[in-house]
């Protein structure tokens, strides 16, 4: 008698699709990544702002922190609309491709500065502490040059985080979380110690009157009458303090990676970021100006928190030890800011590359780690060049800073505002203060944020001359590069292909949960075939608890997949399918395990994969060939055959719009 089961008994092989794009993080991790950038500015912002606007700087920093809280609202709204809601996507939707490219180019300029300003500042804190220790032990001849030391340190730390990002974001977010935990402890100690010091020796609050230096007025020095208008002065002062909110834009970049429930977690992350940065950047700056005497504060312009610590009440040696802690944590958080800048720039440029603007060469994943290592390398190279050019001058970097940031905030908010009128699809969340007049919704809240941002941006444009000059040159250069790259892409007609998700493929000769990358005890197998018919995947992603369940997205490839050996590339149809699967996984913030299994009998293969992975549920869409009842019957037969000796049960769900069939099979 002929053995008809032979092909069915063959070992299940699979092509496992690995990519860093499918990893999702908690709101704590997301907050930590953003805070590494946003809160790190506490280490340098007051020193820079005070040089421009005088002793009132902390008040302007506090104003900026409150304003940042309203700016975060525009990011929440845009993220609810687009998962990959960085400035490029949002501006492109509202204002077109050219404006989007300009906005991205400006933002990249700030990423090129964020990393260097953070790492150079970290170097300053570290060198300052080392020099203090040398002085304590009478080793003044070993004095390290703050400029040279900080440049060397900045380059080393850039190379370190370049490597970490090439390895993968999971590692990076883990680091950010550890850094922020340590920073929180340090901030609590600073607040408590400062409160005790102020109780023992009360000091007045800094004055609210700004004293803007001629240099800080920039080109407005040529229009003296403007300088007499108080509101203009306030705008200029806020403009010079606005780097305190640098890092807010990273919120949009990390949204893609935030786990389910995505928007709620985004809101939680945004609030944590606001609360932390307000206390750290705003309150600590205020305390520093109150506690560090006026005549010595300028010496600590580049490491003001160290200065604050050294003027607290307590034994010198204890303060020096704590200064060491501040320097070490500063080194970590500021280095984290550099890391976040790399992540942010990588994320922005990846979106640009996906759109066919950057050539596919940039998006090619690292063979081992699956990261966009070429983009990461390019960003790190730009940052190292900036570090070398600034030669350890934090004030110069601060003056060059916030050009792209402010333009990016402004164009992003303008776009969200425009989309309120152009795109009427329901929003998951809206910036508050919306009023209806004659059926037309007037977004007052959004409009006010936009006006605020626009005015500060203009104030910066005419006063921060270094930023305007260098920012414009860089933005123009980068914009031209993007244009040329896009032209090249169109010429070779690869743009369409490049829109597909870039992934790494790994052939597995034996299917086990570990080899597939499953992490949880529960598994749900979702079978997908048609890239445009993924309703059932949506249903599955909407129901699973990502903390306990893995979602294995299975494609059965009947024709073209090899059953052994190396796999270089997915068939074209599967690339589109995977791109859509990844987009949906991102929307829900759920880690999925995509598998391609070569098999002749799709139903049997589906059941076999579920059986071998120990899945508790199979979810399929409605077939175009047979009735859903017949699909269930086929699965029942396959499951009965496979689970004959074990008696294992499985739930089978067939879902299609407005319908669902669910049965348990034994």
């Amino acid at each position, binding site marked *: *008698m*002929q*053995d*008809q*089961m032979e*092909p*069915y008994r063959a070992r299940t092989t699979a092509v496992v699709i690995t990519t860093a794009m499918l990893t999702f993080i908690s709101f704590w991790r997301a907050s930590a990544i953003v805070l590494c950038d946003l809160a790190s500015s506490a280490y340098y912002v007051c020193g820079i702002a005070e040089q421009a606007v005088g002793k009132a700087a902390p008040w302007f920093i506090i104003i900026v922190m409150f304003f940042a809280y309203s700016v975060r609202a525009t990011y929440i709204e845009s993220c609810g609309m687009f998962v990959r809601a960085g400035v490029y996507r949002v501006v492109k939707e509202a204002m077109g491709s050219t404006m989007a490219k300009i906005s991205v180019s400006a933002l990249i300029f700030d990423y090129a500065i964020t990393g260097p300003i953070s790492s150079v500042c970290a170097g300053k804190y570290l060198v300052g502490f080392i020099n203090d220790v040398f002085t304590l032990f009478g080793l003044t001849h070993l004095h390290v040059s703050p400029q040279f030391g900080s440049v060397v340190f900045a380059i080393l730390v850039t190379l370190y985080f370049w490597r970490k990002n090439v390895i993968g974001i999971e590692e990076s977010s883990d680091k950010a979380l550890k850094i922020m935990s340590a920073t929180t402890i340090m901030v609590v100690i600073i607040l408590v110690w400062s409160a005790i010091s102020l109780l023992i020796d009360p000091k007045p609050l800094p004055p609210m009157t700004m004293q803007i230096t001629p240099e800080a007025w920039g080109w407005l020095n040529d229009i003296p009458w403007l300088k007499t208008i108080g509101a203009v002065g306030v705008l200029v002062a806020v403009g010079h303090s606005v780097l305190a909110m640098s890092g807010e834009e990273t919120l949009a970049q990390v949204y893609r990676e935030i786990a389910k429930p995505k928007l709620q977690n985004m809101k939680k992350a945004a609030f944590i970021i606001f609360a932390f940065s307000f206390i750290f950047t705003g309150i600590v700056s205020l305390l520093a100006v109150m506690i560090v005497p006026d005549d010595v504060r300028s010496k600590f312009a580049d490491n003001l928190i160290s200065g604050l610590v050294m003027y607290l009440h307590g034994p010198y040696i204890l303060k020096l030890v704590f200064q060491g802690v501040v320097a070490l944590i500063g080194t970590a958080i500021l280095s984290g800011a550099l890391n976040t800048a790399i992540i942010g720039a990588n994320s922005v440029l990846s979106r640009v590359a996906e759109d066919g603007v950057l050539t596919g060469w940039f998006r090619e994943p690292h063979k081992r780690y699956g990261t966009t290592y070429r983009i990461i390398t390019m960003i790190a190279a730009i940052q190292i060049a900036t570090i070398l050019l600034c030669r350890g001058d934090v004030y110069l970097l601060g003056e060059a800073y916030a050009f792209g940031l402010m333009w990016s905030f402004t164009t992003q908010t303008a776009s969200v505002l425009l989309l309120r009128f152009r795109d009427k699809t329901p929003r998951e969340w809206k910036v508050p203060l919306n009023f209806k007049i004659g059926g037309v919704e007037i977004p007052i809240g959004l409009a006010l944020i936009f006006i605020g941002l626009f005015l500060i941006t203009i104030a910066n444009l005419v006063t921060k001359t270094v930023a305007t000059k260098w920012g414009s040159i860089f933005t123009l250069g980068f914009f031209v590069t993007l244009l040329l790259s896009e032209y090249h892409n169109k010429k070779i007609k690869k743009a369409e292909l490049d829109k597909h998700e870039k992934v790494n493929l790994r052939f597995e000769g034996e299917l086990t949960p570990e080899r597939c990358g499953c992490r949880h005890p529960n598994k749900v197998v979702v079978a997908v075939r048609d890239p445009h018919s993924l309703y059932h995947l949506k249903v599955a992603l909407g129901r699973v608890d990502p903390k306990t369940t893995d979602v294995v997205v299975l494609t059965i490839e009947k024709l073209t997949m090899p059953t052994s050996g190396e796999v270089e590339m997915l068939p074209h149809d599967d690339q589109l399918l995977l791109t859509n699967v990844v987009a949906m996984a991102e929307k829900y913030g759920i880690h999925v395990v995509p598998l391609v299994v070569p098999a*002749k009998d799709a139903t049997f293969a589906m059941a076999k994969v579920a059986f071998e992975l120990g899945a508790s549920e199979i979810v399929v869409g409605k077939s175009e*060939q*047979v*009735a859903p*009842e*017949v699909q*269930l*019957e*086929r699965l*029942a*037969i*396959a*499951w*009965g*055959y*496979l*689970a*004959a*000796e074990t008696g294992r049960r499985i739930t089978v769900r067939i879902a299609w719009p407005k319908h669902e069939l669910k*049965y*348990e*099979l*034994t």
Partner: protein
Amino acid sequence: MQLTHYITPKEIIVPLKGTTKEAVYKELVRYLADEHHIRDKDKLLSAILEREESASTFLPIGVAIPHARIPSVEDIMLIMGVTSAAIKDTAKDSAPLTANVFCMFFSPTEDKEFGRHLKLLARIAAVFSDTKLVPELAKLKSPEAVFERIQRREREMSEE
């Protein structure tokens, strides 16, 4: 669920007379209708053929499970047929499979009964997952022997 709960030796035909799929289906329907005193045999047969047209029920384990859900049935009705000469599947789109054992059944159309319908399909597949079973049954000459062998298989399964 046990397969032998749905059949007795009286509901087993050994050997089947038909030599084609259609002839076997007719033979099984006729026998089942007589056993259950159902007049409209054509309705049963057309339900089976209609289901078979949407997707073949021949399995690569040497078993076919022609089945249908019909409104006039109150409980599952099952009939089994065994032949020593393998019957070829004539479905256009299916793989060239053959079967020596036929488990034909009808079940009610109510949604709440569909779970049992699926479990029976799974049970039949489970019982015949033992590759030695079909060749052994094909050699047996009486319904009692077939019934006994299936009973033994189910006992082994529950012991495992």
